[in-house]
């Protein structure tokens, strides 16, 4: 609950109504992003002051309704029911008034006063709607503040209304929606049966309504709270009226119809807006794919044109400068300590830092595509294809960008609403061969396969994609019983991106990466470095080498020796480390060169198996760290690592023996 002088405001709204824009406008950088307790749903809260009062603003997850279809709805309504915010501001889209008032209809029966922020008045006007906020206000019985959050119009009036309501008390008498007439008696029966048994702080009439709607959480709760005999009676009624869900929803839409009939004049039918014209191309089965491919090309071009040079600059000047400083400062210290700081710690910091330029570009692009409204279109054109793997259309973009780097791919899964589809996408993302991984392949393939190197490289990508598809089908079948969230998704109106919203998103995501994933990356880098340097500073006799020797039997099945095992182990810090490690272990580089030495030491079958394992192996520690960050679960992270180890080893052994069979 709140302290005496800080009041809590909950910000509710359906997706795409401009809720984040309003949140960012009110709180600016005074916001904190975390997760809702025990959930992977993002929780944003921030503070602002008005009139000398401090307000805590909690951004509830964007949901279309408050019936338990997913974690988001439960979080939103539980916050309102259990935490009792002083005011709930619900943002509605004036251009989609009917649909966005549905959430208002769900909020009014809850025990917290509501103020309606009637956003996107400018869009509504462009679309030809004429809305009279005062009439709507009178009809709803709650305050309605017209605004254009993207242009900071009406926000001051909203805050003023909130302040007045929260401080001076109010006369709050909303006109609440009712269930469709043909189900009124049933609702009364249920309410009579559960009377006195509803646990605090749930409102009794609301619980009765949710029971009729077939809400999973509330049904479970009441089954526990009611005496067996009474529950059987309730259950009997519910089974008899399993169509009640539609009666409740229809009742809400009928109520909405009455609310807006007086307040809104609708546009002439038949006018073709910008969105319709753009969608003619963007959602077309063929042109939609062409546009998507163009956008993907642009993203990769941006990453290489801006991201790679920035990475280089960071690496040379910031990380290199730091290393030099440390070396100079530690001139008198023992060599061991100096090495640990320079190679271990600063190397680890460098690994974290050099991800930032790529993440920056990636989040800026993803944020823009989402804000403009294109993300839903990309999901729409890719949905059929992604279904084959039990995935959602929205999984495509993050996965595809994994070819650049797996870290933003995992972080990018936030655009996927369905938690299961999101988790599955996170589990599969590390199987996409990233640029660092393909660099290793590009170095080793020519040494072993000469002119066939290109073919081998493409083969590796193909193997990775086939394994990804099969894993998707498999994990979906076993872990999620083949369930797939229904494909139903709003295609929002296109609009100009909001720089502030995107800027804050980029800032928060990068900050979260450095704070959460950064620590783990640093620790693992240092640990691996120590293992490779102790006990006597030589990697050949280090603890890491000893681990390599111990693991050699597993590698034998593919013709690996301990050195290849050590190379794989060091690739955990960063994929390209494989090459550096092999360089040291084969002390090559002087006469023959590493490539030639490797080709002379191992058979092509072993080389092929090594490449396959390298491609499918556990991803770099940065990816594992963000898998942990995004799943918020060590269980799933370890499952992911174990799964990838198993898959890479199995496929590696398979490829090795297949290659032996054909005589490589």
């Amino acid at each position, binding site marked *: 609950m709140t302290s005496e002088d800080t009041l809590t405001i909950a910000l509710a709204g359906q997706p795409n109504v401009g809720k984040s824009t309003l949140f960012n406008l009110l709180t600016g950088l005074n916001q904190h992003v975390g997760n809702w307790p025990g959930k992977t749903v993002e929780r944003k809260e921030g503070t602002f002051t008005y009139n000398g009062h401090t307000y805590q603003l909690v951004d509830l997850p964007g949901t*279309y*309704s408050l*019936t338990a*279809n997913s974690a988001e709805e439960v979080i939103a309504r539980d916050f309102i029911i259990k935490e009792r915010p002083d005011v709930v501001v619900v943002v509605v889209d004036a*251009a*989609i*008034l*009917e*649909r966005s008032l*549905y959430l208002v209809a769900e909020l009014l029966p809850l025990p917290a006063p509501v103020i309606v922020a009637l956003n996107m008045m400018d869009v509504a006007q462009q*679309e030809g709607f004429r809305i009279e906020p005062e009439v709507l206000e009178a009809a709803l019985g709650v305050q309605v503040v017209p605004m254009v959050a993207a242009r900071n119009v009406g926000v001051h009036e909203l805050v003023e209304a909130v302040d007045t309501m929260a401080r001076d008390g109010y006369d709050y008498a909303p006109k609440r929606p009712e269930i469709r007439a043909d189900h009124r008696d049933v609702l009364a029966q249920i309410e009579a049966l559960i009377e006195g048994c509803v646990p605090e702080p749930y409102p009794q009439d609301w619980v009765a309504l949710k029971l009729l*709607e*077939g809400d999973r959480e509330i049904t479970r709760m009441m089954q526990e709270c009611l005496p067996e005999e009474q529950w059987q009676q309730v259950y009997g009624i519910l089974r008899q009226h*399993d169509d009640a*869900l*539609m009666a409740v*929803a*229809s009742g809400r*839409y009928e109520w909405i119809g009455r609310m807006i009939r007086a307040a809104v004049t609708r546009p002439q039918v038949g006018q073709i807006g910008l*969105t*319709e014209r753009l*969608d003619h191309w963007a*959602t077309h*089965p063929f042109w939609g794919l062409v546009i998507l491919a163009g956008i993907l090309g642009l993203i990769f071009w941006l990453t290489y044109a801006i991201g790679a040079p920035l990475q280089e600059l960071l690496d040379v000047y910031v990380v290199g400068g730091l290393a030099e400083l440390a070396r100079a400062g530690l001139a008198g210290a023992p060599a061991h300590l100096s090495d640990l700081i320079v190679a271990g710690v600063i190397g680890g910091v460098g690994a974290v830092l050099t991800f930032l330029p790529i993440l920056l570009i990636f989040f800026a692009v993803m944020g823009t595509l989402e804000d403009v409204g294109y993300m*839903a279109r990309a999901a*729409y054109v890719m*949905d*059929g294809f992604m279904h084959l793997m039990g995935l959602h259309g929205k999984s495509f973009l993050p996965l595809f960008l994994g070819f650049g780097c797996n870290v933003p791919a995992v972080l990018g899964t936030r655009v996927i609403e369905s938690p299961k589809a999101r988790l599955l996408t996170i589990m599969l993302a590390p199987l996409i061969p990233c640029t660092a991984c393909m660099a290793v392949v590009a170095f080793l393939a020519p040494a072993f396969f000469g002119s066939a190197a290109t073919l081998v490289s493409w083969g590796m990508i193909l193997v990775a994609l086939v394994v990804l598809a099969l894993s998707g089908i498999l994990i979906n079948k076993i872990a999620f019983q083949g369930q797939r969230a*229904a*494909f*139903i*998704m*709003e*295609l*929002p109106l296109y609009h100009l991106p909001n720089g502030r919203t995107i800027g804050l998103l980029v800032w928060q995501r990068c900050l979260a990466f450095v704070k959460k994933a950064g620590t783990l990356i640093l620790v693992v880098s240092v640990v691996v470095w120590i293992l490779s340097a102790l006990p006597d500073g030589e990697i050949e006799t280090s603890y890491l080498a000893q681990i390599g020797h111990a693991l050699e039997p597993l590698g034998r099945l593919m013709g690996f020796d301990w050195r290849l095992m050590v190379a794989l182990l060091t690739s955990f810090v960063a994929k390209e480390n494989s090459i550096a490690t092999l360089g040291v272990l084969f002390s090559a580089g002087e006469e023959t060169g590493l490539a030639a030495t490797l080709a002379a030491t191992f058979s092509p079958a072993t080389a092929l198996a090594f490449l396959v394992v390298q491609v499918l192996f556990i991803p770099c520690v940065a990816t594992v760290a963000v898998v942990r960050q995004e799943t918020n679960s060590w269980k799933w992270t370890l499952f992911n690592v174990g799964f990838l180890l198993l898959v890479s080893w199995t496929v590696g052994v398979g490829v090795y023996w297949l290659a032996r069979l054909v005589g490589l």
Partner: protein
Amino acid sequence: MKNIKTHWAASMPASQLSKNEVTALSALHAGERGVVAELLGGRGVLGRMAALGFTPGAEVKMMQNFGHGPLIVFLRDTRVALGRGEASKVRVRRA
């Protein structure tokens, strides 16, 4: 002249052939309108569809339907994309 009969049937607007007929939403052609009559299917999906506006009496207009894959409808002032499977569970009365 040989295919005159089929030609006549094909040229007749589908909406006139079947006025007031209740059919699956997925059977509407692009540009056709209808009114939702009922929804079939399990509660989880129905709940989500109802929240997005698919309730009896809602007016829908088919925006895109290529006969396969997902489709786009316009209802309650919004474009909604839905899978063919989901669309076949919505029964509409042609308008």
